[in-house]
């Protein structure tokens, strides 16, 4: 009874304080003498509705790009993570390569990689090497995000207590079997939320393909913006990206909460 009442009271306080803050923000932005100018430049209804079909159509390229990239990144990132976890001295070159790879591709800005690969490699005019900007944008995203994702996997693998592997080995499993059947299943479940987090970043980075001349959603918006000197098409693009990424973030939150409950409560 008291618990229900205090919960209701909590909801009421939350609603009132949210409304109060929103009102103050809206009033202070709206009271700026330049607000009508900014509104016309960024939030023009006509430019929004005229740009929507063009930008949404171009967004299909972003979707293709991130779906293909995600399919490639998941196994590649895992391979790199495993290569980095190798302890055998004979396979040290593999471990060193994986370490250098993750250091390099996490360290350089994506935009530089896309420039070098997208403009530089086709200029070599090597027979059989694709020159399609879409291809090189895909390669760039896979290279960079595999590095991020491999570190997520590695963190997951290392979070599994060593006793798990030792117990598995004691039961007669080989090192590979222990990894495959004991460590990875536990590790992968833990890394799902951070993996999805990286994929949200990947979806936004598909706009990088625009540098190579491909007219995807962001470039389409820029074309319309420059044609009319009005920034509203960029807001249209923002909305389209949000429509995709917000459900993803909610899903991440839910998975994280579920995982926490499973770990703490034991209830599956």
């Amino acid at each position, binding site marked *: 009874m008291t618990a229900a009442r205090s919960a209701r009271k909590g909801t009421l306080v939350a609603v009132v304080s949210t409304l109060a803050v929103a009102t103050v923000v809206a009033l202070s932005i709206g009271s700026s003498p*330049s607000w009508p100018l900014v509104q016309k430049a960024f939030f023009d209804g006509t430019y929004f509705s005229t740009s929507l079909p063009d930008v949404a159509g171009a967004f299909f390229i972003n979707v293709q790009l991130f779906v293909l990239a995600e399919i490639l990144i998941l196994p590649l990132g895992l391979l790199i993570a495993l290569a980095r976890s190798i302890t055998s001295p004979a396979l040290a070159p593999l471990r060193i390569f994986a370490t250098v790879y993750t250091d390099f591709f996490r360290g350089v800005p994506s935009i530089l990689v896309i420039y070098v690969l997208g403009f530089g490699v086709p200029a070599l005019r090597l027979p059989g090497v694709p020159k399609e900007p879409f291809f090189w944008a895909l390669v760039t995203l896979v290279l960079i995000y595999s590095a991020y994702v491999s570190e997520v996997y590695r963190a997951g693998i290392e979070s599994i207590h060593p006793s798990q592997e030792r117990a598995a080995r004691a039961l007669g499993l080989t090192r590979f079997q222990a990894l495959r059947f004991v460590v990875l299943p536990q590790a992968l479940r833990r890394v799902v939320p951070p993996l999805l987090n990286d994929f949200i970043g990947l979806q936004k980075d598909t706009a990088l393909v*625009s540098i190579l001349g*491909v*007219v995807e959603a962001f470039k389409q918006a820029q*074309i319309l913006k420059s044609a009319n*000197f*009005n*920034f509203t098409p960029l807001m249209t693009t923002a909305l389209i990206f949000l429509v995709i990424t917000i459900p993803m973030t909610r899903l991440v939150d839910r998975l994280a909460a579920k995982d926490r409950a499973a770990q703490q409560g034991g209830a599956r």
Partner: protein
Amino acid sequence: MSTTRSRIAIGQTTRMAVVVMAMAMLLAACGGTAVSPTSSVYDSCVKEKLAVKTAGKLTLSTDNPAYSPWFQGGNEGATVWVGDYNNDPAKGQGYEGAVAYAVAAKLGFTADEVVWIQSAFDQSFAPGAKDFDLFLNQVSIKPARAEAIDFSSGYYDVAQGVVTIEGSPIAGATSIADLKTAKLGAQIGTTSLDAITSVIKPDTEPAVFNTNDEAVAALEGGIIDGIVTDVPTAFYMRDAQLTGGIIVGQLPSASGTQEQFGIVMEKGSPLTACVSSAVEALKADGTLAALLTEWIADKASAPVLK
């Protein structure tokens, strides 16, 4: 020009004050045309009466890098427009550089009273107050754009051209029909892109680059078959940027109306009428034609493709 401008001003603004101000400026402009231009265009457009950003100075702006033939003379001693092929606009050389100083002189500013600042293309039309008085950056005049900023009268008649390199599928093209199957590229924000979609109408979607330099890199890499850009820039690409560059030809204008470059000023700028009059005066007294001969010469046109 004046009638078009006033229609735009009245149609777009809701604030009475701005309308009144615009009308006053137009009246001043109309009154001024009768007076023969001396050192300044007319009485209310003298330096002392102009509401410039910094008193006694005319603040001009363009993007960085500044390319030939629009800006020339190199960049020795410059701190902003640095790097190979870049040009310091303060040299007053190249067609736009020279036009900028000619307009400044018409308004009564000496070369010493001209200050150059760098603005990105997008900054020139972002909402709100601008840091510059005048922005010259090969900006084509379009009615929709004039809702966000003010344009002066046009100071250059633009024609679009096609440039390619040896070995490209369109290296031997002689007609617009020959370009139909080509993968063409253009710089974003240019009317060159409109020319591709409305005049050439190619089978493949055009590639759109953030800068002309990237379009050149894509052409050299075989990613695209040709670039559409304004004709003087096409000549510049052929002569300075491309190895084995070829001018395919010039495109007929899309809508039948002559495309022009105009000087950009902030929306409702008190300078617009004066700057337009200055440009008109420079056109009438032959200055613009002389500067065109001096800086662009035979690179302003190419054989028109049919």
